[in-house]
């Protein structure tokens, strides 16, 4: 027992425990989110959703995952084999790494780095690379379309996203996520930064390729976009990454605007998860309510509306901070 504590106490031990914890969290979270999405969608659409497997279909996703694992992994002819096989892994790894710095509660954080925000945003940018790899290697015009759109979209929306989160950072004066939460002791930043919150949610929806900004995989236009040619668990990894990405952007929203783990009575991590899933519910709500925007409208929206607004918000914040 003493040995175990000593091992866990070392840096390496912490990393190992963290990794196992993260992988478990990612899997359980994806299983839960897919079920949640199906239930949210169903109830918005006047139907009950999955009901057969488990309580209200609670373990339906596990059945689906098992089916997916049993599927044949098809590699179409004339794909760029190495890139094609690498893409699902590349899309998944940065997602895992982002969990390193997310503080689930005051103490529950794997590595409390002073560049936390930058690390997450840098890794989030890697997702684009994976999508580009997948689309390009698939040797399919629809897949290429999907990945080209994805790159343009992510580049366009990363800029307002970064500028938007700069405003709270300016108020705190630290990139460390725990500091940002600590600074929200008196009030949540959503009160002082309502515009930034709206901008952030908009950009985050686009960043995670969710409807109404789900153009890289716009079903009615591009069949399945960049993952058209992927089957079985390879497709499953893209799916898993998408839902985990959703968790990460929602976690960032919680940390920046909703006071992170802060809340009465319940332990910190419960509050944190509650807020995260509330944000995810909001994003799901968008998906099942809005039609899809057109590609040029999407890009125009980012460059002509979101970026100027984000800059204006940043300047205003800077001015107010200076005067105070």
């Amino acid at each position: 027992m003493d040995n175990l504590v000593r091992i866990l106490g070392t840096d390496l031990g912490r990393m190992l425990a963290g990794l196992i914890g993260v992988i478990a969290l990612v899997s359980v979270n994806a299983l839960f989110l897919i079920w949640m999405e199906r239930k949210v969608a169903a109830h918005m659409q006047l139907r009950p959703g999955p009901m057969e497997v488990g309580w209200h279909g609670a373990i339906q996703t596990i059945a689906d995952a098992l089916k997916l694992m049993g599927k044949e992994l098809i590699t179409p002819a004339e794909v760029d084999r190495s890139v094609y096989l690498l893409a699902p892994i590349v899309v998944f790894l940065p997602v895992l790494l982002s969990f390193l710095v997310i503080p689930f509660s005051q103490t529950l954080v794997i590595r409390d780095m002073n560049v936390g925000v930058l690390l997450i945003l840098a890794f989030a940018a890697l997702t684009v690379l994976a999508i580009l790899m997948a689309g390009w290697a698939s040797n399919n015009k629809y897949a290429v379309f999907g990945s080209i759109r994805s790159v343009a979209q992510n580049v366009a929306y990363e800029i307002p996203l970064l500028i938007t989160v700069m405003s709270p950072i300016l108020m705190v004066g630290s990139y460390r996520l725990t500091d940002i939460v600590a600074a929200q002791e008196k009030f949540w930043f959503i009160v002082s930064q309502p515009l930034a919150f709206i901008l952030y949610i908009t950009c985050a929806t686009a960043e995670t390729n969710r409807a109404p900004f789900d153009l890289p995989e716009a079903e009615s236009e591009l069949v399945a976009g960049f993952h058209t040619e992927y089957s079985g668990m390879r497709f499953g990894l893209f799916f898993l990454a998408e839902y985990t990405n959703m968790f990460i952007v929602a976690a960032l929203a919680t940390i920046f605007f909703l006071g992170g783990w802060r809340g009465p009575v319940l332990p910190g991590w419960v509050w944190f998860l509650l807020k995260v899933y509330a944000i995810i519910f909001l994003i799901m709500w968008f998906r099942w309510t809005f039609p899809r925007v057109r590609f040029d409208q999407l890009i125009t929206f980012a460059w002509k509306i979101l970026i100027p607004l984000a800059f204006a918000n940043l300047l205003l914040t800077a001015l107010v901070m200076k005067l105070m």
Partner: protein
Amino acid sequence: MHEPGQEEKTYVLNFGPQHPSTHGVLRVELQMEGEFITKAAPDIGYGHRGHEHMAENRNYQQFLPNMGRVDYLHALAYNQGYCMAVEKLTGLEVPERAEFIRVITAELNRIASHLLWVGAYLLDLGAFTPFLYCFDDRENILDLLDRVTGSRLTYCYYRFGGVPKDIDDEFMAGCRAFITRLRGRFKDYDDLVTKNIIFIKRTRDIGVISKEQCVRYGLTGPMVRGSGIPYDIRKSEPYSVYPRFDFEIPIGERGDIMDRYLVRIREMAQSLRIIEQALDKLPDGPIMAEKVPKRIKPAAGEVYQAVETARGEFGCYIVSEGDIKPYRIKLRVPSFGNLSILPEIAVDTLVADLVAILGSIDVVVPEIDR
């Protein structure tokens, strides 16, 4: 095409026949430059079943079930068109009550078709939820029609000289309940869809068709009415008992996708009006003409009968040589004419617009292929 040494700037994108937005086995060959379309050529015929040829090899009654399968979404209009053509040819008089029942059921079917269109069209635009709302409403119609016709999709209900089964009080009560229900739902559709900013951005001034183009391509149905021409067979060449009802022909102003959407929504409201009046005025009497011959054997001659389906003008042209089989039946289908304008209006649009335009044409591919 491109010559050696010249850089290739365009490429071909096969849109279909296996694609979520072609609503059946339609293939559009797209010449693309980036995401812009420089040329669109529809390729039809994947679902050809030879209905017209079948007609030449069976007698008049045996061809009747085929009519539910040409346009499976507005099958009763096809039933009506074919039955009326044969009745014209043989001089059969249809009792008044049967005509009223035909109008009620055909209009219900029209609403079902439009509801499906609204749902499927918004699905094309990426909104999933309205689809299920529309299907929820449509389910009511299917239940009602199931009661009298015995089937839910490929109806074969009308007979030469009338209808085989009378409608009962329960059906009429169901109809009235449905009218009240759908009228209440229009406001929901308006709030959720018509006023949605993304929807407006996707449909306003996209796929504009001018009046001149409408005439040149022989468009019919909501396509032509969306462009501001009030052409509806029910008014312009009245048939059945339609002249006895008070209803309007909704038309659009700009001829864009939005107008075609609004025309269809308003048409549903007008169909409700027709059904309501028909239920009120429904006369008593027989539902089948007396002395309908067992073997339909019309004298030699030819006849054309047009009816308004949910997609436009369906015309049934029969040539008889005095045999128990028709010599030739030509089906004039609205979707064929309506699709023919696609190459002209799809040029210089984005793929996303092509999906929106193709959806707004409301093609039923088996109808085109026949």
